[in-house]
């Protein structure tokens, strides 16, 4: 699955997740798999409380982290692709 910069995603509701010292642990209710997100990934997960696209996420993240828009967008795209592949997020 290849995502677009302006595709909106939301969290898959069939997931349990919890904050652990700024990182996130998750469990899929569907397949019983466990996932972990690092600090930056966890920040994006927090923002995904409401539907977001790679573009809208990048707009927010460049205000919080010292990163160029271009780098940020490409990293976010990669991250969202990974989340979507594992069905942790679904199109909103």
């Amino acid at each position, binding site marked *: 699955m290849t995502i677009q910069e302006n595709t909106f995603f939301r969290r898959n509701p069939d997931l349990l997740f919890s904050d652990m010292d700024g*990182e996130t642990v998750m469990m899929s209710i569907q397949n019983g798999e466990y996932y972990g997100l690092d600090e930056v990934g966890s920040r994006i997960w927090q923002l995904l409380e409401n539907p977001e696209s790679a573009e809208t996420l990048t707009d927010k993240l460049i205000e919080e982290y010292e990163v160029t828009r271009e780098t940020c967008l490409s990293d976010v795209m990669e991250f969202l692709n990974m989340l979507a592949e594992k069905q942790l997020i679904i199109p909103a």
Partner: protein
Amino acid sequence: MYHYTTFGLRIRSDIELPELGEPGREEKPDLTITFRPIPGELPEALYRGKSFQISPSQVLIRIEQVAGYLVRNGREIIIDPSHTAEMDLVRVFLLGPVIGIALHQQGFLVLHGSSVLWNHQAIIFAGASGSGKSTIAGALIRRGFPFLADDLCPLRMENNMPLLLPSIPQLKLMEDVLPELDFSPESAVRLSSVTAKYGISFAEKISAEPLPVRMIFILQSEPTEKDIRMEQLSGVEKFHALKDNTYRFPLLHYMNLTTRHFGLVTSVAKQVTVYRIIRNTGISVEKTAATVTEFLSRL
């Protein structure tokens, strides 16, 4: 009928279970242990292995030449012993994996570890089978730490605090570590004629009440580690340490307990400090116990 209270559960048993201490007075039981024939198969099983057949409400455990055990909803254990069964061995499995399954069904977070008392709290040593959790507990007991639990450490949350339930007052040790720990041969009883494991009973239960858990140590042997070191875990790693050291974790999936387990592990993880004790396999139990004691004295 024999009545006991262990793990905070009132247990009524058809047979005497001396490992649980002196029988108490008759009470309405939370868990019954009875003897009668059980089916050979669980038709609704989601998992069928050599010893375990598992469904969300029932688990059938078959130990060849010992017994079949049917564990239902954490409320009932039915034992069907084989003709040649040695009763000592029937009890060894009953008070190990079988009651472990019942505790899972009861909804506790059952950690695979041993525990001693320190500073009014339970400290737990968890780790894979053979990682030395009972041995380190034994060494600390020799240094004056009171015994709390061995092999099964069932926890429940109360007012946002993880509590260790009062457990079976018996420490199980391999024969070869007894001399090193200097337990007198008379205090250790061989669990059955076919095992090299010995049980050391503690007549006085140290606490009849659940005790708060604030610290958990994960024992890990590491051939590349030269000596012994401690490492505090956080975040995702801390979560996995507790998940992976849950008693027979892979079975929970078939018992339909992973959702509940996730909630328990995350809430316990937020309230405890978890350390990994990484040591070379050649490090003696005495040195490990000394390291832990010294670490605790600095807190």
